[in-house]
């Protein structure tokens, strides 16, 4: 009756159930803070002070309207968007081309150049605030969004180049050789073979840069003075006053701030997973 196959099938189901259970538990631990932020954002400040974990007794969506207008979130949002998108674009263009060089081209200083890019990841931001500020001041870029775009690009390059380089390096040389034999020029190689084949990596790097730039705070604090040019993270700190914090509005503002990230990730998730069905497999 209970042959070995049925036993094996039962074990498989039990195994799967266990797996799902673990994954769900992980999920709860992972997602709870986001949920907490959400339901705190529709409570009143007093309610939050009294019991941080209770569900709201009544919903207060007006926190969002207040956060949006009182803190001029609209302006900050737009600035963050402009800076982030421009920086990502610049980073990807410069970074992908540099990564291609470092991955597939042969030159003596290759290792040195790669190490140089790693250096940029090893310093805490606080250490370079002053020299970087002086640099921007000398270039007359202080209090401009351009200063942020350039700085974010520069600081995004190490991670971008690093990740893309390791991906591109693992792409089979045979494909490139075949293309060259077919008479492809370098730009064509880059645009039609390397970039498409690195789809997942490019998408990953794009998301990571989006995250980092969107949340970046220290540089924005130091470079930007004009209200109208401030980015979102600066705006969020407006809610944390010296002697009291308006937690409810802060949560609402943070939810608004997190939305683009969530959207971006949802969009790019597909690209990462499915984007590469074509590339590496078809030799």
């Amino acid at each position, binding site marked *: 009756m209970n042959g070995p196959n049925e036993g094996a099938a039962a074990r498989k189901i039990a195994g799967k159930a266990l797996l799902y259970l673990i994954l769900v538990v*992980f*999920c709860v631990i*992972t*997602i709870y*803070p986001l949920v907490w*932020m959400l339901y705190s954002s529709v409570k009143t400040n007093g309610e939050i002070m009294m019991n941080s*974990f209770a569900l709201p007794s009544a919903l207060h969506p007006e926190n969002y309207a207040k956060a949006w207008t009182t803190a001029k979130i609209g302006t900050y949002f737009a600035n963050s968007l402009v800076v982030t998108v421009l920086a990502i674009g610049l980073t990807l263009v*410069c970074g992908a*081309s*540099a990564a291609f060089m470092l991955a*597939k*081209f*042969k030159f003596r200083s290759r290792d040195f150049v790669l190490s*140089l*890019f*790693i*250096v940029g*990841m*090893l*310093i*805490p931001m*606080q*250490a*370079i605030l*002053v*020299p970087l500020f*002086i*640099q921007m001041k000398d270039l007359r870029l202080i209090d401009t969004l351009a200063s942020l775009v*350039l700085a974010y*690009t*520069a600081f995004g*390059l*190490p*991670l971008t180049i*690093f*990740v893309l*380089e390791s*991906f591109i390096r*693992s*792409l*089979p*040389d*045979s494909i490139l050789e075949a293309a*060259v034999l077919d008479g492809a020029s370098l730009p064509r190689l880059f645009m039609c073979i390397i970039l498409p084949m690195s789809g997942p990596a490019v998408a*990953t790097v794009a998301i*990571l840069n989006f995250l980092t730039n969107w*949340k970046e*705070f220290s540089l924005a604090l130091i470079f930007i003075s004009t209200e109208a040019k401030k980015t979102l993270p600066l705006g*969020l700190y407006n809610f944390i006053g010296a002697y009291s914090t308006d937690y409810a509005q802060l949560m609402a503002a*943070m939810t608004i*701030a997190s939305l683009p990230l969530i959207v971006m*990730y*949802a969009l790019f*998730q597909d690209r*990462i*997973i499915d*984007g590469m069905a074509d590339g*590496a*497999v078809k*030799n």
Partner: protein
Amino acid sequence: MDSIFKNRKYIALGLAPAMIIYLVFVLYPIVRSFFYGFYDWNGLSKPVYVGLSNFAAILSDKVFWKSFWNNIYIVVVSVFGQIPLGLILAVILNRKMRGAMAFRFFFFMPMILSTVVVGLLWSTILNSQVGILNALLKALALGGLAQNWLGDPRFAMPVVGFIVVWQFFGLYMVILLAALQSIPKEIHESAALDGAGELTKLTRITVPMIWGAITASVVLCIAGGMRTFDLVFTMTQGGPAHATELMAIYMYNKTFDVYKYGYGSAVSLVIFAISFAFILSSRALMGKASSEGKGGEA
């Protein structure tokens, strides 16, 4: 082939845009900041040259060494926590299973939250007076396990390590997922036909084929671990009594709290040197391993 891939002009052109931006906005300021390390400067008056005395003071400061070991702790926890976790989840979720998309989405969420929210939330959960963790333990009749999580020097660092892993494991899951995409399905299928079990497939095929991405992840872990600042600063400010002090926090305090700007710059130079040494050695170690198992052609 070589005419293209060794062509100096092409190489220079391809590298130029990145190099220029990087040189001007990253390397030059970094070098400049190292420069200050040799001066005694309060950030307000003129700097005074003091040679190596900042470095001597750093190396003899107990608090610095405490923060150094804390950083090492975080790096180790990150490398051996985030990467295996990310890898296993990536492998599991790489298949066609129900809810994979949802899981992949949720596991990435911690990365999206700003450090203010993460710090605030976890401090509240772990609060020994009103936090739900202790309340939960008591409800499960495990009240004896309830601790002053962030306020007790014995537990503060492990707890902080856990939260760091919590926030970043999604990152490595995503990177490794992307890497897994480049493994042709046929390889796994033919290995399965040859009788290879899950574990064998993982260790003999998958891992070697994405070794490049794993190495990159380790480097990122080390770099990130050495630089950690925001999250820990928000939650504990390096306390209690320096239990969770990190080198970046130490540097920040010296620079902005007690007006020792030159000293702070010296600390960042030390952070850099140590990080660099770690990364070089890790790449050497991993490079050796990879030259045997690196995949390539399909």
